[in-house]
């Protein structure tokens, strides 16, 4: 039905006047984009607006209590931060009390943040970060320290994963784009990790990362003739996020290799032939033929990787559940945990809306930056 109508309206287009032609083009444009737009609207955008609405209420996933409009309360609970200066404990003469190691001791924060009528503004806040300022300790308190940790981790994850994954994927794409016998086999092998779902991959890597006798430790120890000391990859706050990053890059690189590959395919062969005739070497071809031809692909990949990395979830859910000590908390993981597991659908939706705004901002920045270079 759709085809026939388009055909009928458009076949006469070139014969009409210019303005009319423009109108026809606009009409055709709308018509061709409409099915996808309507579907996205119904099944993605409307539900999301719905979710935004939920974030302004106290709605629970399941509850007999009535839903009430609460304004921005859910957002305030997430974002409330406050600085607080902690003064050292002092003895009778006013000198700071030192602990066994000679460090200055401070009163416990809970004396201020828990049920202290003198500090009502601090009630329920938790330490997110703290710095030593002279003898005092400057503490950044947050009403939701876990959320800030998740935000920070996710940003680190994106900043590390995006270039690594895009870069490795391009290298692989160039490798398997060679005219070599049997190169297809490698195309498939590099794609393998993508084929297995992330849930499964994460389960397998738990075995690999095991701290005592995991494969990675066994391998490193064998390669270094026993000099390597086993590391508890997922059990230590220093290595857990890095381990998840490494696995994620490894898993996703094949996905983006495929996108790069199809970008490479769209570069006309004659350009390379012309370059060869002009005496260009491999590097020059890469620099002056391949790279410019990949501009749109690069934009696509950068945006897609950014988006995908921001939605870090499955790995965390299966491998660490945010631990150890919140070192692998992630935004979407928090959104899901609150919305589903803790039945706080309003709070979970608020996190998603914040994430959406952050990424929207970044994607506008990205498209602005890439547009300028054109």
């Amino acid at each position, binding site marked *: 039905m759709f*085809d026939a109508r*388009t055909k009928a309206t458009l076949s006469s*287009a*070139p014969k009409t006047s210019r303005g009319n032609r423009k109108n026809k*083009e*606009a*009409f*055709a*444009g*709308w018509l*061709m*984009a409409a099915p*996808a*737009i*309507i*579907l*996205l609207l119904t*099944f993605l955008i409307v*539900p*999301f607006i*719905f979710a935004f609405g939920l974030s302004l209420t106290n709605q629970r996933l399941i509850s007999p209590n009535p839903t009430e409009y609460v304004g921005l309360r859910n957002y305030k609970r997430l974002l409330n931060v406050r600085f607080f200066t902690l003064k050292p404990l002092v003895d009778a003469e006013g000198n700071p009390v030192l602990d066994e190691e000679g460090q200055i001791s401070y009163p416990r924060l809970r004396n201020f943040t828990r049920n202290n009528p003198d500090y009502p503004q601090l009630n329920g806040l938790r330490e997110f970060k703290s710095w030593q300022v002279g003898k005092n300790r400057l503490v950044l308190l947050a009403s939701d320290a876990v959320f800030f940790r998740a935000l920070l981790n996710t940003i680190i994850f994106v900043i590390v994963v995006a270039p690594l994954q895009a870069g490795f994927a391009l290298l*692989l794409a160039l*490798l398997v784009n060679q005219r*070599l016998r049997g*190169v297809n086999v*490698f195309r*498939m*092998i*590099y*794609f*393998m*990790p993508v*084929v*297995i779902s992330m*849930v*499964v991959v994460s389960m397998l890597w738990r*075995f690999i990362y*095991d701290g*005592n006798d995991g*494969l990675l430790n*066994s391998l490193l120890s064998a390669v270094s003739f026993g000099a390597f000391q086993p590391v508890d990859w997922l059990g230590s706050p220093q290595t857990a996020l890095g381990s998840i990053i490494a696995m994620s890059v490894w898993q996703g690189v*094949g*996905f983006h290799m495929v*996108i790069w590959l*199809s*970008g490479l*395919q*769209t570069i006309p*062969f*004659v350009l390379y032939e012309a370059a060869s005739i002009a005496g260009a070497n491999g590097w020059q071809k890469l620099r002056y033929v391949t790279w410019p*031809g990949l501009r749109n*692909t690069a934009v*696509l990949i950068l945006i897609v990787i950014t*988006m995908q990395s921001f939605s870090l979830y499955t790995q965390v859910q299966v491998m660490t559940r945010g631990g150890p000590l919140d070192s692998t908390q992630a935004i979407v993981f928090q*959104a899901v945990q609150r919305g*589903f597991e803790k039945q706080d*659908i309003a709070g979970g939706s608020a996190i*998603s809306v914040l*994430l959406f705004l952050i990424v929207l901002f970044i994607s506008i920045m990205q*498209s602005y930056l890439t547009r300028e270079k054109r």
Partner: protein
Amino acid sequence: MQAKNVRGRNYRLGIYARYATLILIGLIFIFPIVFMIVSSFKPDLQLLRDTSSLRAFLPVGDISVDNYIEAFERAPIGRFIFNSVFITAVSVGLGLFLNSLAGFSFAVLEWPGKTIVLAVIIATLIIPFETIAIPLLLIVNFLPWFGLEGFTQGWLDSYQVQIIPFIADALSVFLFTQFFRDLPKEIIEAARIDGASWWQIYQRVLVPISGPVFATAAILKFLAMYNQFLWPLMVAQSEEFRPVMVGLQYFFQLNVAWGEIMAYLTIITVPVLIFYLALQRAFIESIASSGVKG
């Protein structure tokens, strides 16, 4: 003459070096698959013990196909695979058509509001499905359907509820848009001058030269659809509509059946590999065609 000889030797060395690189990198990517397949032939206890050594990759010890037999007894695997392949095939098919059409419109045609609409679509890439799952559930539960039993309300427990919401996807639209932007404008202009309609340009000019893009979009969508989990869990209430990833949960009992899980994973990976291999041809053919195209 000597120079030529050297070049020949360098060339051969270069070839060997390339293969060596390809193989080394290949090892990094293939080991979990090897682990998965090898493990699927081992009994649970041995499988778990082997994870701490290189034995994990070797078909040694007590090797049998018992896991496969037991996996088929535990769950209606054939049904799950059929469901997944059917749901995936229909959504990929319809999705390629509608999304490429939209991509064409965004990349080639001029119409008011285009930029804003595209920006919104790209932004929706970030909406985690988990956030909209509940609202979406309420929406599909409200929508009418006309089927064999006449008009019914609510799509739950069906194929369409697992297909229609996912036909259009922002990633595909964006992918098509980006690639169609690279197409030589002259081809389209030429076709316009020849009096071709926009539909004809899409169908006769654009689709034939866009094999790699369609192949890429198909693969990515296939993966996303085939790995669907949370949604079917919520909407497929009877076993007859459940796909493979929900089926995987059948193996997580109090005592996790690791060997059967590996067998199950090996089985359900096969359709994806077949699909990927089939699409490889599209890549190869388009290499040839792009040579002609320029």
